[in-house]
């Protein structure tokens, strides 16, 4: 009797040995930092990182009173929606293209990986250089084409104004997000069995109809994962904006991650509060996204 219960207990504990390391890893790398982050947001912390005691909700009050806070949060939202929607739409088209048979397909697929293989920071800096008012390649081409009067002026400086800088930032973000998304969708396309297409053909469905009624629904698991990862990635994207505009002029191209980093230079507690808000935003965005994409409903088979 005694022996039996012991063996049952040890059997119950066996899985722990296997999942233990993973649990510890998650606890140390994910949960503990989140706890510290939330804790920091309620503390008064000196410039040298020394905790000077509790600060109640003061960090949050100060953060919400920042005149630029509202604009920054609104911009972050627009930024995520714009980049993710454009990325997904373009990737769907690209995946479809790369799923066809055509000469040099292998080369084309390799070329698609390039923006992914290059460091994001590097890509952003290269684009900044290409848009340099005096010596930027893009501007030089525009001048040669007669679309721009001269180098060096305000017209040749798209990153100098929020209205022209934002589209360029979105462009670069889409550029670096395309490879991953396209490959995720390509993998999704590969899982769709060819007999469903044959059946549709037999029924006389037209191409657009086939895409809408067969490809898209069957692609949904891949699409959901790809888009969700993009939402989180883009929301937390830092290097593109930091390297290209530094959030300037003023805070007019800053998103919440940029704002958090700038705050870190002046008030670590307030920056931690911003992190918590950021964290909350990601969770809310993810929840909304999963709700909208009906994560839980079974895909028709």
């Amino acid at each position, binding site marked *: 009797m005694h022996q039996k219960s012991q063996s049952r207990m040890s059997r119950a504990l066996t899985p722990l040995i296997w999942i233990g390391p993973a649990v510890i890893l998650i606890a140390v790398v994910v949960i503990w930092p989140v706890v510290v982050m939330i804790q920091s947001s309620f503390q008064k912390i000196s410039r040298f990182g020394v905790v000077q005691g509790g600060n109640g909700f003061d960090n949050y009050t100060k953060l919400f009173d920042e005149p630029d806070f509202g604009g920054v949060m609104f911009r972050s939202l627009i930024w995520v929606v714009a980049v993710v929607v454009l990325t997904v739409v373009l990737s769907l088209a690209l995946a479809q293209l790369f799923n066809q048979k055509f000469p040099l397909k292998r080369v084309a697929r390799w070329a698609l990986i390039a923006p992914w293989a290059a460091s994001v920071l590097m890509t952003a800096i290269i684009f900044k250089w290409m848009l340099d008012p*005096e010596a930027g390649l893009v501007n030089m081409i525009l001048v040669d084409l007669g679309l721009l009067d001269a180098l060096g002026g305000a017209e040749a*400086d798209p990153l*100098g104004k929020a209205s022209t800088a934002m589209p360029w930032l979105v462009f670069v973000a889409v550029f670096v997000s395309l490879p991953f998304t396209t490959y995720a969708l390509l993998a999704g396309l590969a899982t769709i069995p060819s007999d469903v297409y044959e059946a549709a053909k037999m029924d006389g469905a037209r191409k657009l109809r086939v895409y809408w009624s067969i490809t898209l629904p069957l692609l949904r698991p891949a699409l959901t994962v790809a888009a969700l990862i993009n939402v989180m990635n883009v929301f937390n994207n830092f290097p593109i904006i930091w390297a290209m505009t530094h959030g300037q002029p003023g805070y007019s191209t800053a998103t919440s991650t940029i704002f958090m*980093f700038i705050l870190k*230079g002046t008030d670590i507690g307030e*920056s931690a509060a911003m*992190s918590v808000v950021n964290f909350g935003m*990601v969770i809310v965005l993810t929840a909304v996204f999963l709700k909208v994409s009906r994560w839980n409903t079974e895909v028709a088979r």
Partner: protein
Amino acid sequence: MNKKLVGAATLGVAAALVLTSCGSGGESGTGSGDKGSGGGTVTLKMVAADYGGGPTAEDSGAKFWKGVTDEFTAANPNIKVDVQVINWNDIDKQVATMVQNGQFPDILQTGDYSGFVKEGLLHKVDEILSPQTQADLLPKFAEFGKVDGAAYGIPFVSSARGLFYNKDLFSKAGIAEPPKTWDELKAAAEKLKKADVAQPFGLPLGNEEAQGESFLWFMGAGGGYKDASGNWAINSPQNIEAFKYLKGLHDAGLTTPNPGTKNRKDVWEDFGAGKVGMAFGGPMSIPQFEKAGLTNFGVAPIPGKSAVLETTLGVQDWIMAFNKNGRAAEIKKFFDFFYSGTAAQKISDTYKLLPVTTSGIQKLSSDEKLKPFLDALPNATFYPFTDPKWTEVNTEVKQSIGGAITGDAAEVLGKIQKIATGS
């Protein structure tokens, strides 16, 4: 998942780990110190910032300091100086970690000293510097090393600002003399514009150095970050006037386009490439311009509203000694060696940094291009960096003062003033 956030949080974790290991770290630190003095020789541990181009560069800080310390040890065989050179981006963080660990260096050379004073970690200057050397330091500079009347920070090197102008472009535009007043500056800029110079005046108000550029214009109108009685006065009528003048320049197309997003580095590169008529710069920009191939440039005092400035923006770096290891006598020897010997001048020559001593200025006074800086140096004006609010003000100025060119100057400056005076 959330990389930035995990980063911020790991910082917190690291800090926590560091704090818990404080006790043991401190003891082992003292232990090794005792061993050093027991053997007859004392090893001073020094941490210094790198003024050169990194560890592999010809002018690396490590090489510079090795030369200095070898010479010092030759003269003082029982004192060794072990120098750890750290780049500017990391030095503050690494020193903070050392301090939190209780592993105090004996000597620290960096951009600020004031943070350590409050914690009682520093030797007073009287304990570690001979009266002769103290008397040689420029009084205005030394004054900023004081906290509540007692000096802790020793000025190490300095830098100042002047007006750089491209002589080729000036003669092409038919301008005989560098401008002395704002009106002359605007007239010169208009002539340069007519001579097809894309950026008559290089105006970097982006995040790199907006606080310095703005300060020079504030001073031109008789303003500054603080008023005569030491209160923040960022939105003073003088400062607003300065930015209205700049707005006029900008709107007439006489400046760098979108100044609020342009960094000093970019403007200096354009100046070196011969595309900018005039720009504010410092001694450290001289080698950069020459390297870019521009040699025919002049340096003049900063133009003000009605006359050239008597002062300039002075920036100084500091050297200080921690009091935890009890080696004041050895440190004193090293400091006196540094300031009275050739080392201080060598650093000026190597890095085009300006001296902080009267004797140092005399030694350099024959250099034509350094003259405007040296003349203004004894009367330099500094950032109000001893004010605890300065870090916040500085960050906000860097980020948003460019908006005073495109938007309403009073409003933008008012916002920064609010940050300075807020709780």
